[in-house]
Structure formats: C-alpha cells, structure tokens
C-alpha cells in the first residue's frame, strides 16, 4: 500500500556536437552601430528586509553595443544578479528600483514601459538565461511547451508552427532527438541539456540582447565550455549582444569583449578584456586575478586569498567599499568615496578603461604609486 513517490531522472550522455544555424536570416540592426543597444544609467536598487534597507546596487553605469559581449564579474552578493534582473524589469517586492535610475533599451526606458511594451521587451527584444535551469523551468510542464509559450506570446504562430520551431531550436542548441526531448519534463534532462533548453527558450524569439546570469555555474567544466561556445556562436552568427554575469574569470577569459568588475553594488573597474587581464588597476581586480590558479606559475607559488568578507550593505561604508580588505588601504579610503580614474589605452584599443581607487587620485603622493606598482599582480598572461 505504501507506494513510494520516486523521482527518476533520466540522465543521458552529453552531446558535444552542435546543430544547425540559429536561423535563416541573421539579426540585422538598423541605425548607428555606435549607438549603444542598452544603456544603464545611475542604477540603484534596494531591498527592504527585516534588518533594514539593503542597498544591493549603488549607482551602476554601463552600456552594451550591438553584437557586443559584456561580462559582469564579482563575488556573490555584489549586486550583479540584481542588476541583471533589473534590466529585465524583474525586480519585485521587497526590492525597489530607486528614483533616478534609468535603463535605456534602444533609447527607451525599460523601467517606465507599459505592461504591453514590457511584454514585448521581455522575451521578444531581450532574453534571459538563468543560473539553475532545474528551478528556472517549470518542473511540471513539458520542456517543449515552455519554449512554445515564448513563441506564442511574441508571434502569431499557430500551435503547429510553434512546435516545429521549438523542435528546431532544441536541435540548434545541440539537443539530440529533439522531437523526443520536446515531450519530456525538465527533470528528465541532464544539467547541461537543461541549460541548453533554457538557452533555446531565451533565444526563441531572436532577441537583440541576451542576459546570461551565471549560465555555467551549476555545470561541469567540460559542459561549461560547450555552453560558452554556444553563446559565442549566438553572437557571431546572429549579432546578438550578450551580458554575461559570472563570478569566474576563467569563464570570460576567451569570451568577453568588455569586462565590468563589481564590488558591493558598485563598479570598481571596467575596460576591455585585454585591459582587465593585462593591465588591471584596482586592487580588487588584482585580488580576484590572483585568486585564480594558473598553469604558468611556479610550483610553490601560493594562491592569493582575499581576507575578510564584503561589507554589510545595510550600512555601506562611507569610503571605498573594498578598503577594509585592501592591502593598500589608506586613511582616505576609509573616509571618502574614491574618484574614478580613466586610463587612456593605446589607439583604438581604448574601451574606456577606468578604475575607482584612491591610488590613482591626482593628489596621491608618488610613494603610494610605487608601493602599488610593487604589489600589483602582473597581468593575465596565461589566462587566454
């Protein structure tokens, strides 16, 4: 009488081979290629919890151009996932987007869109890939149906057409036996397959921008590479812009065009991939790079760890948020917000490299610079 309710996942071998093209006509954008697709201006998001107002994101600015891959890197809790969700206008109670924040998608403010515009924007113009596909997909709905839902919301496809398109998409993202898989439930997929299905769902309506929130964190390293390859193809073939949220420098190494380093709800350093890997300026970036094991290091070299924990964002420090964990902490760091220093790149390589740090303040004495030079982690050679 006591029948057990057993969950039986059917894990299958990962298929390495990747299917056909995303679609017949690659995504074409009109207008000025230098005009950014997405602009995030002075974004501030708070969560009202029992302990008080947690200031998750504290004034973040960046933009994404057409066909560009932007990586947002930071520890957990630094506000990068909240930023991603805000771009999709997915912040809900108890989270609040503060006055004065702007998210412009093709010049239109996402935060003041009507319900109808928002419905077109989400899924249609902008797709999102979540970290854990097992919880992000509805556990009681067939995978195919969930992809179909997206297609049916944004186009006037009939059920039959939507089904064919969904199967095609599953095939494109490299899921073998797409027709069978279409009828299965998320729990019958392996982790990598689920993430592929998630990607198929996010890109079903050929969005101009895809936000990938830690898409590979829950996966094996080999499968991580396949998923990243899949995303890169999405950009290369369709010209889709991608915002990649991650805490792993290894993931972005061969992938991102621009990198933004976030700490405690603020951007501490930004620049092109080369600039961040070969010429990092902020002590936090050094610390992050120093914490990644490298093949070219000598055997006995110790990995650098960052001591302490990120600051409590209920009462953020008035000075530099990283000051208390920084090996180069100065008196001023604890008292005042550091200035943003631009680092001119060489010729066309300049992607607006800048860091927010007192070390580069105009009035900083020379010996400070010297000590900084001595301590800095040299470059990301070997990362690429």
């Amino acid at each position, binding site marked *: 009488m006591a029948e057990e309710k057993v969950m039986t996942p059917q894990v299958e071998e990962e298929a390495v081979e990747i299917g056909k093209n995303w679609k017949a006509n690659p995504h074409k954008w009109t207008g000025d290629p230098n005009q950014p697709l997405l602009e995030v201006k002075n974004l501030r998001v708070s969560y009202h919890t029992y302990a008080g107002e947690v200031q998750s994101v504290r004034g973040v600015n960046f933009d994404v151009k057409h066909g560009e891959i932007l990586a947002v890197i930071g520890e957990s809790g630094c506000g990068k996932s909240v930023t991603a969700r805000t771009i999709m206008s997915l912040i809900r109670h108890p989270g609040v987007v503060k006055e004065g924040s702007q998210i412009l998608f093709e010049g239109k403010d996402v935060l003041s869109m009507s319900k109808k515009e928002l419905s077109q924007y989400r899924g249609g113009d902008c797709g999102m890939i979540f970290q854990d596909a097992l919880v992000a997909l509805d556990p009681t709905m067939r995978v195919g149906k969930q992809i179909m839902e997206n297609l049916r919301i944004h186009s006037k496809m009939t059920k039959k057409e939507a089904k064919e398109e969904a199967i095609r998409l599953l095939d494109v993202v490299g899921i073998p036996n797409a027709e069978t898989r279409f009828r299965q439930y998320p729990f019958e997929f392996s982790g990598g397959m689920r993430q592929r299905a998630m990607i198929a769902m996010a890109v079903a309506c050929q969005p101009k921008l895809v936000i990938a929130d830690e898409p590979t964190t829950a996966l094996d390293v080999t499968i991580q590479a396949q998923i990243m390859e899949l995303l890169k193809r999405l950009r290369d073939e369709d010209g889709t812009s991608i915002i990649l949220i991650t805490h792993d420098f290894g993931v972005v190494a061969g992938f991102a065009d621009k990198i933004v380093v976030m700490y405690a709800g603020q951007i501490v350093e930004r620049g092109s991939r080369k600039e961040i890997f070969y010429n990092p300026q902020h002590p936090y970036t050094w610390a992050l790079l120093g914490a990644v094991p490298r093949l070219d290091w000598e055997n006995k070299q110790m990995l650098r760890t960052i001591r302490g924990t990120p600051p409590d964002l209920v*009462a953020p420090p*008035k000075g530099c948020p990283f000051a208390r964990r920084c090996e180069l902490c100065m008196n001023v760091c604890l008292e005042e917000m550091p200035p943003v220093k631009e680092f001119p790149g060489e010729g066309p390589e300049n992607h607006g490299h800048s860091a927010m740090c007192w070390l580069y303040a105009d009035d900083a*004495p020379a010996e400070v610079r010297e000590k900084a030079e001595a301590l800095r982690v040299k470059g990301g050679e070997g990362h690429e």
Partner: protein
Amino acid sequence: MNTDTVSIKKPEDRFAFVDQDSLYADEITRKNIGFWADAARRFKQNKVAMFFLIVLVLLIVMSLLGPVISGKDYITINGQDKNMAPCSQYWLGTDNMGRDLFTRSWVGLRTSLVIALVAAGIQLVVGCLYGSIMATLGGIVDDVMMRIVEVISSIPNLILCTLLLVVFGNGYVQLLFALSVTSWTGTARLVRGQILKLRESEYVLASKAMGGSNMHRILKHLLPNTLGLLILELAQAIPSVIFSETSLSFLGIGLMPPNFSLGTMLQQGQSTMNFYPFQLLVPCVLLSLLVLSFNVVGDALRDALDPQLRN
C-alpha cells in the same frame, strides 16, 4: 563596519597607509544565537500568540480555581433552581437539573483538557517508540509494523473510537485508550520518516565520517531536528483530540453521567437550546476559546521553530 576609528587629522595623513591589523580589530561578528533562544525570541515577538498564550494559561488556571471561587456544588441535582438565568447567586445560571453552570463549565473544561493532554501525550510517546522501532529495525519487522499502521489508519478515526468504546465500555480510561489508539499512527509515520531521512542526510554522514559516536548523532542531530516537529505534532494533536472527545461525548458514546465534559454539556444544551440558549452558549464559547488558543499558540510555535524562516 562603518564606525571608523581612523579619522584624518592632518591633510598629509590622508594618503598614509593604514595598519592592516587595525582594520580587523573592530570587526563585528554577529552574535551567535542558539536554535532554542532564537525560537523563543521569535515566539515572544508574536503579540497575538502571546495574548492567546495568556488566555490559555487563564483557562487552565480557571479550570482549577473556578469551582473553588464559586464554591458551588456541581453534582447534586437541585429541583428548585432548574434552568435559572444568570443571576447573582448563579453567575451563569443553572442547567436543567438545577446545577450551577459556572462551576460545571470549568469542571467540564478541566475534564476535556486533561483528556486532551493525556491522550496527546500517549499519542506522542507511543508514536515515537513505534516509529523509531520501525526505522531502526527495518526489514520485515518494519514491513509488518507498517502494515498494522495502515490497517489502523484506514478506519476513520471517529468510527474506530466508537468501535473501541463499544467493546471496552464508557469511562475515562476507556475514552483515553480509544482516543490514543486512533491517533498515534500519524506520529509513528512522522518519526519513522524523519529518522530515515536523517539517516540518509549528508550532515549525519559527515558526522559519521568525522568519527562522531552514535550517542552524539542522536543528541546533536536527531533530537534537535525531531523535537521541533514533535512539539508541533503535540500542538496539533491537542485540538484534534478535543474535537474527537467532544463529538463522542455529544453522541452519548464517550463519557456517561455522572461523568461529564464540555461535550456532554453541549448535548444537554442542544436539547434545551430554544428555551435556555445560555446552557448551550457557555460550553460552546469555552470550547472554541480553548481550541483557538491552542491553535494560535501552535501556529506561532511552528513559525518560531521553522528553521527555514530563520534569518
């Protein structure tokens, strides 16, 4: 963290490096509150629950002191004072046999309360023992014991109670027995499931891997993880036993005169309700208040003990 000890006195100190060790000197670590202290703290924050806890205590105290306060005889039939309305002599009036309703209500409440507490206690003890024996022995013993549980729980509670009362007769002991026999199966399943779950859990595995003793595992993992559940089980068992007891007594199957509880008073009240609604209302209100307080306090306990809600 933001209470900075360093302040800049001279402008040339601005860019002086801070001594690394001083940065961690004043680091505040959040005070570590234990599970039980935290649960108690959260329970106390719940104003409604505190109120009903006081109501519950008052009800219990009154069920003991009520008869003493009024000093009335609640047993002897008094032909002259039948069906009296509330007055200075009989604060809540009298019943159809002229007995003081105020006193009778508190005594009836006491009976219902004692039966509920004892039956719920028996349910918990038997359920725990049975459940843990099932889980520990396993195999065929487990199968057979589980089958017994299934047979018992396939008969609706109230039906089984009536059956047992027919077989064993009426009275306190028989009623207690009948109520306990029907209710422990749920507890037994709960305990068995909990033990099996914990045995499989990774932290128990970790404790084993680190060489912790069996005793350590029982004290540090099994008990704290099960105790909360058992307290909740008790909080839920008491109202349900009160429900069953009053229903049975109302049907004339539970207690027989001269024994009485709130259930028998309901039965009596119904027969005269059109003329003397007070005789029905008084036990109704007391009964509802009693169960309501148990439920509110039980709910608050659940919220306070649920580790998921801990922040």
